[in-house]
C-alpha cells in the first residue's frame, strides 16, 4: 500500500458511496481523521500472514435450519405506522426513475 492518506476528493467519493452528504469543511476534517486511523491500522500490513485462514465469524456455523411451520409475522399496519410515508399497505418513496 503506497500511502496512508485519504485525500479530500477520495473522502468526498467515499461519502457519496455511503450516501452521506458532507460539506467541504467536513471533507477536510474527515480526510485527516480517517487517514490517522488508517495509518494506525496499517501496522497489520507489515504482518507476514499469507496462508492464514480469515475468520469471518467467531463461531463457525453451517446453515441453520428450522422447521417450516406457519407462524404469525409482524403486523403490517404496525410496521407501516413507523414509516415516514406509506399508502395502500406499501412504503411510499420519492421518485426513483428519471423524468419520462
Amino acid at each position, binding site marked *: 500500500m503506497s500511502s496512508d492518506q485519504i485525500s479530500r476528493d477520495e473522502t468526498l467519493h467515499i461519502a457519496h458511496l455511503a450516501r452521506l452528504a458532507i460539506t467541504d469543511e467536513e471533507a477536510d476534517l474527515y480526510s485527516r*481523521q480517517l487517514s490517522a486511523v488508517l495509518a494506525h491500522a496499517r501496522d497489520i500490513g507489515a504482518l507476514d500472514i499469507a496462508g492464514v485462514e480469515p*475468520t*469471518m465469524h*467467531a463461531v463457525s456455523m453451517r446453515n441453520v435450519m428450522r422447521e417450516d411451520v406457519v407462524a404469525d409475522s409482524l403486523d403490517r399496519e404496525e410496521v407501516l405506522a413507523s414509516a415516514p410515508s406509506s399508502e395502500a399497505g406499501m*412504503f411510499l418513496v420519492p421518485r426513483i426513475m428519471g423524468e419520462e
Partner: protein
Amino acid sequence: MAIVDMAAREIASAVRNRELSATEVVEAHLSEISAHDREVAAFLLVLADEARHRARSIDEAIARGEEVGPLAGVPIAVKDNMTLRGVETTCASRILAGWRPPYTATVVQRVESAGAIVIGKTNLDEFAMGSSTENSGFFPTRNPIDLSRVPGGSSGGSAAAVAARFTPLALGSDTGGSIRQPASLCGVVGAKPTYGLVSRYGLIAFASSLDQIGPFARSVEDAAALLSVIASRDPMDSTSLGVGFDASGIAEGVQGMRIGVVEEMLEGVSSGVASVLDSAIAALEAAGAAIERVSVPAARYGLSAYYLIAPAEASSNLARFDGVRYGLRVEGEDITETYLRTRERGFGAEVKRRIMLGTYALSAGYYDALYGKAQQVRTLIARDFAAAYEHFDALISPTSPTVAFRFGERSDPLSMYMSDVCTIPSNLAGHPGMSVPFGPAENGMPAGVQVLAPALREGVMFRVAMALEAAASEAAVPEWAKAAGSGGAA
C-alpha cells in the same frame, strides 16, 4: 438498608416472601431517579407508568400465590439499542427519534418473564459507537462517582444507572468493550458473554459478528443471576448457540487455578490502574491461584483489526437507515438525494466517520489489504488465546488503561479508540470477558480488573471474578449516597 442499596437477589427474595412489595421497590428507584438523574442523565426515557403497572401486576400475582420468577420485582434498565414493542427506541440517534418498534427483543422478553421490571431506556454513544457516551445524539451521560468525568461507553447510561443506584441491574451491549469499559469507569460489574450465548434478536446491529448483550450489576452474583436468565437458545437468532449459563459453582474459589496476566495489555496503562492490577494479582495468589505472565502476541494487533472489521460491518448494517421504512426522512428531489440528506441530518460525526471508514475498507482495491487482512489477524488472535489457554484457566488484565477521563479530553478519535485496547481482542475471538471493580486508582476513581476465559467458560470467569470481589476494597458510591448515609431516596 435502603431499598436502592439492595442487591437484585435480595430484592427478589424479599418480594417473593412478601417482606417488600414490587411497588415499593419501583417507587424507591423512581424517586432516586427523579432526585438525581437530572445530574447524571443516564436515562433517555424513564418508564415510570409502565414500571408501576408491572409492579402492581407482580404484587397481585404474588397475592394470588402464583410463581413470579427469579427476578421478581427487580428493576432493570435497558440500553436504548434494544427494542420494546411500542416504546421509543433510538440508539441515541436522531435518525431513529420517535421510532416505536413493532417487536420486543428476546432479552427483554426473558427478563420480563423472570419477573424483572423495565424501568427505563438508557443513553449510549450513538449506535453504540464510542467509549464515553459523549457521542449520544441527545446529551452526554455523567459519571455518578465524579460528575465532571465521562461514564465510559458505549453503554455509559446503563453503567451509570447501576452505579447511581437507579437500578440494581441493567443490560448493555459490547462490540469492542462497550459493557466492560464503562463498568470499569463507573465501578460496577459488567460482563460480555461468549458470542452466541445471548440472543441478539431485537438488538439493533452495529457489527454483527462482534455484538453481544450482557449484564451490569453491583455484584458478581447479581451479574451471574441476570446472565443465567438471558442466556438461551433463540430460534430468532441463527447465531444463538443453544446453551444456557448455570451460575451454581461460581463461589467455589480459585484454589489451584492457573491465571495468566496478559503482557500485551499492560502497555500504556496508568500507574494507578497498574497498581490496582498488582493488588488484584496479590489477592488471587492469596486465594490460592498460581499467577504468571503470558504473552498473547497477536492481541497487540486487535485495535487495528477491530477498526477495519467493525466499521466495515457497521457500514453495511447502517445502510438500512435510508428514510424509507422507519425513522427520519429528509425529502430530496429524488431517492438518492433523500438518502443523502436523511443520513446527513440523522447521523452524528462518529457514526459518519465509521461508515466512511468501513466503506473505504470494503471498497475495490483495498478489500484484500485491509478487511481481508484484518480477518486473518482475527484468526491469529484466536490462535494465540487458544495457546495461552493450554496453560491457563483464565487470563486477567486491566479493563481499561485509565480511569474515567474528563469531558472533551479525547476529542481525537484515535485517542478515544485506545480506551478499548484491552477489551477488543475477546470480541474478535468471540470469548467471554468481564470487568470487576478493584479500585480506586487515580483521583479516587474506580478501576476494574478484566477477567477473560475461553468460549463458554463463563463459569470459570465468574469464579475468578468472585474471588476478586471478595478481596476488593469498598465500592465507590456517588456523593449524594455518602451524604445520605444508609438512607436512600427521600
